[in-house]
Structures are given as structure tokens and as C-alpha cells.
């Protein structure tokens, strides 16, 4: 019988939540790596038993863990992330030049077809690749050394490369997003890059339509229609119909167009999910009501999904990497909160229930659909 495995990264460890295809009864494994920040855990599409985890600590730095048995056991692999050459400077918060310094891995993106190949998005923003299952990492320096790089500035959470999307329709095409530089695309497997931010408007920068400098929070794509991308920006939900060459706003009737995650239904490329959050600094749901918003029209028209979610006194946040979908016939949707809840919907968002309620603050949620 098919099943799902939900991979949860939290401020104090990783958790693996498993269920059969009904998604009603859950087994909880963890905490793995207790006490460490687990920024991201993700499985290989080519080998679902192979998982990668980013384990970090302000004291002890970066560790990458790998499991070859679906999370039952883990072993550390390579943790040396050395920028290529002399890394130079980007702008600091006050506008002064600041040396590029590795802090942590925010996001791990395994190859679509090779279980030994995995990409890592890091802070300070850079993209690394391993071709040996995470033992050794090499930077793809073309992104960091883009001519605009010296002008990039960190977002509030650091200058992180948080989104990596491998285009299933065009091998070698990679999308990446950096806070607060914007979205970038490579068409040659990460060797060269171009900013792809035309149409974005950000009021917090001197030139609101600048080529770079936008605080992109998350990108999403449906694999069957890779030319269409969705974006949750610091403000504005955006859509591109031309592989990110240009963007237009689809915030429509959302109660606020600020938020972090965005994802797409597994079988309906026009069904999109976001979690509106009050900003600029509040970073909790409007009116204390935790609502996922769903558009079935590729944006603009949004409906609130509330059944099973707290509708009063709820002041959690949902971070950028903390939403995912499964690909069972009835698409499942999952998200985790800074309050430690992981919610699941087995009916495409119509109703929700918590799998767990009291984990440490959730940083990331990924889902594997198992045969």
C-alpha cells in the first residue's frame, strides 16, 4: 500500500512522520540530532530511501547527514563548504562591504535522477553541488560571482539561498532564489546565471523595479508545466508564464500578500497554496486566524481554508520551506509552524488536522510519496 513520509526540520532536531495512504494514523520518529537546528531534510526522487539533512549549530557549525534507509539510521558526510577562490564582498545591512562568509546550509535539493547528486543553497548566498552523495562539495561560483553580487544585501534572516528548483522539462535549467537579491536562472546546470526579476516591485529598495535586490521568499513550480512559476515575495504573490522571464502579481483577494511558503497541488498546476502573514514585523496570521489560502485559478482568486485550523488566538508563523504536497490521488498538503505543529490535509486543503502539536519551531517540511 502506498504511503507518505513527512520530513520535518526544527530548531532542535529532525522528525520523520510516517503514515499509510489514508494518512490517518501517524508514526513519529525523532528527534534525530536533538539540540541541533535542522534547516532542511529532503529525499532523493531517484532513491526515496536516500535522505539528506542540514544540521547546524551556532557553536559547532555545519554538518550534513545522510540516510540510506529512509531515516532509520544516519551518517554524517562532508561538511566543507569552501567558496571558490577569494569570495569578495557583498553589502552589509548598513550598506558597507562585508566579506562573504559561510554560515549554514538552508536548503538541500537532490537531483531528479541521480541519488548521488545533490545541490545545497547556503548562507552567505551560494550554490554548492555534490556528485558523491554529499561527501564532497564544490561551489558553482557563477551565481555568487554574478556582476550584481557585490550589491546584494541580506534579508532579516541572513543572505540565504533558500530555494532551488531543478526543471524537469529542461535538463540543466535551475532556478534559485536569494533573500534579498531575488530570483536567478541558469540554463547550463549552474555554470552561468541571470537575474529573473522583471515585473517585481519592491517598495523597500531605491529602485522598486531594480534587476536585483528583491526579497523573494519562495518559488514553486508544477513539474508538468515547468514554464509556470509562482513566487511568494516579501510582499506580493507573483506568477510567471515564461520560465521567470517576467512576472505579474496574482495576490488578488488575499487578506495580506505577505507570507513565506507557496506550493502547487500535485495534480492541478493551477491550484496554488499560500499562508498569508501580517507584516511588516508582526509575522503572525491576520486576526489570529491560521488560514491557508488556495487558488484554483493560478492566482488572483483565493479561498480561505480553515476547517481544522485554529481560528482564534493563533500567532504562529509558517516559514518558507515549511510547506509541501504529496502526490497521492487525493493530494495531501502539509505545513509546519513556529509553534511546533505540523498540519496535514488529505483532501487538498479542504480540512486539516495536526499530526503533531508540540515539536520545536518548525523550519522545514518535505513529503515523500512512497510506493
Amino acid at each position, binding site marked *: 500500500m502506498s504511503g507518505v513520509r513527512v520530513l520535518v526540520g526544527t530548531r532542535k532536531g529532525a522528525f520523520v512522520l510516517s503514515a499509510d495512504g489514508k494518512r490517518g494514523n501517524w508514526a513519529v520518529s525523532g528527534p534525530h540530532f536533538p539540540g*541541533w537546528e535542522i534547516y532542511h531534510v529532503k529525499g532523493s526522487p531517484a532513491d526515496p530511501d536516500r535522505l539528506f539533512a542540514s544540521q547546524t549549530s551556532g557553536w*559547532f*557549525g555545519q*554538518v550534513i547527514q545522510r540516510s540510506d534507509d529512509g531515516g532509520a539510521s544516519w551518517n554524517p558526510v562532508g561538511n*566543507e563548504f569552501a567558496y571558490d577562490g577569494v569570495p569578495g564582498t557583498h553589502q552589509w545591512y548598513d550598506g558597507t562591504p562585508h566579506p562573504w562568509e559561510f554560515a549554514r546550509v538552508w536548503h538541500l535539493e537532490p537531483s531528479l535522477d541521480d541519488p548521488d547528486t545533490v545541490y545545497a543553497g547556503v548562507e552567505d548566498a551560494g550554490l554548492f553541488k555534490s556528485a558523491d552523495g554529499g561527501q564532497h562539495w564544490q561551489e558553482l561560483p557563477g551565481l555568487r560571482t554574478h556582476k550584481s553580487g557585490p550589491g546584494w544585501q541580506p534579508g532579516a534572516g541572513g543572505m540565504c539561498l533558500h530555494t532551488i528548483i531543478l526543471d524537469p522539462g529542461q535538463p540543466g535549467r535551475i532556478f534559485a532564489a536569494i533573500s534579498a537579491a531575488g530570483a536567478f536562472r541558469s540554463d547550463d546546470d549552474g555554470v552561468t546565471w541571470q537575474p529573473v526579476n522583471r515585473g517585481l516591485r519592491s517598495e523597500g529598495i531605491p529602485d522598486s523595479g531594480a534587476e536585483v535586490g528583491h526579497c523573494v521568499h519562495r518559488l514553486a513550480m508544477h513539474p508538468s508545466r515547468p514554464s509556470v512559476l509562482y513566487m511568494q515575495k516579501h510582499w506580493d504573490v507573483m506568477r510567471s508564464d515564461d520560465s521567470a522571464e517576467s512576472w505579474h502579481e496574482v495576490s488578488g483577494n488575499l487578506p495580506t500578500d505577505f507570507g513565506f511558503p507557496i506550493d502547487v497541488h500535485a495534480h492541478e498546476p493551477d491550484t496554488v497554496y499560500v499562508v498569508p502573514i501580517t507584516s511588516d514585523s508582526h509575522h503572525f496570521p491576520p486576526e489570529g486566524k491560521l488560514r491557508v489560502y488556495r487558488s484554483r485559478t493560478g492566482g488572483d482568486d483565493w479561498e480561505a481554508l480553515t476547517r481544522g485550523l485554529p481560528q482564534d488566538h493563533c500567532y504562529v508563523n509558517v516559514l518558507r520551506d515549511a510547506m509541501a504536497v504529496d502526490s497521492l490521488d487525493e493530494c495531501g498538503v502539509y505545513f509546519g509552524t513556529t509553534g511546533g505543529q505540523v498540519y496535514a490535509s488529505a483532501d487538498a486543503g479542504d480540512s486539516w488536522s495536526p499530526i503533531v502539536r508540540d515539536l520545536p519551531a518548525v523550519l522545514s517540511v518535505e513529503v515523500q510519496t512512497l510506493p
Partner: protein
Amino acid sequence: MIRVVLPAHLRALARADGEVELRVEGPVTQCSVLDALEARYPVLRGTIRGHNGGPRRPFIRFYACAEDLSHEQPDAPLPDAVASGTEPYLIVGAMAGG
């Protein structure tokens, strides 16, 4: 033998129980002890100091014989009591975070 005490998180990472005992060839210095430690437990590379013998991570401290050796030169000899195994060399995660 040199006795080394690791912080709990690094003991778990290295899967080491209790104190670690190391044989160090030549002068017993912080650098040679860490070299021997990382040779025994490669997973600790980068978690105490930078890769390839780089600088101490900011929230790591080195103590021995009731002294803070964190700011000593990496190649300075460690106290005789550490070199003889009478006293342990302590690698400590600094208290921080409230």
C-alpha cells in the same frame, strides 16, 4: 595518552563515550591534539575549528588545569599535566543564549 573531554553534542556526533584518549606524536600542543582528534574522528572536522587547521570557532573554548587556553597560540605547548595524561584537555561549548 592525552585525555580530551568533548562537549555532549560533539560526543554524540563522534559517537564517542566519555573521555577520548589520544596518542600524540611529538610536541603536545593544542594544534597537535586537535589534529589527532580529527584524525580519529573525521566527522569533527570543521566543528571545533576551521577545516585544515583553521581558527577556533567563536563559541568554542579550550580549558585545562583550571586555565582558559582559548587565546593561546595553537602551537604553544600544553601544560605538562595534560601531556602526561594527569589532567584532561577540555573542549567546551561556550555558555551563550540566555
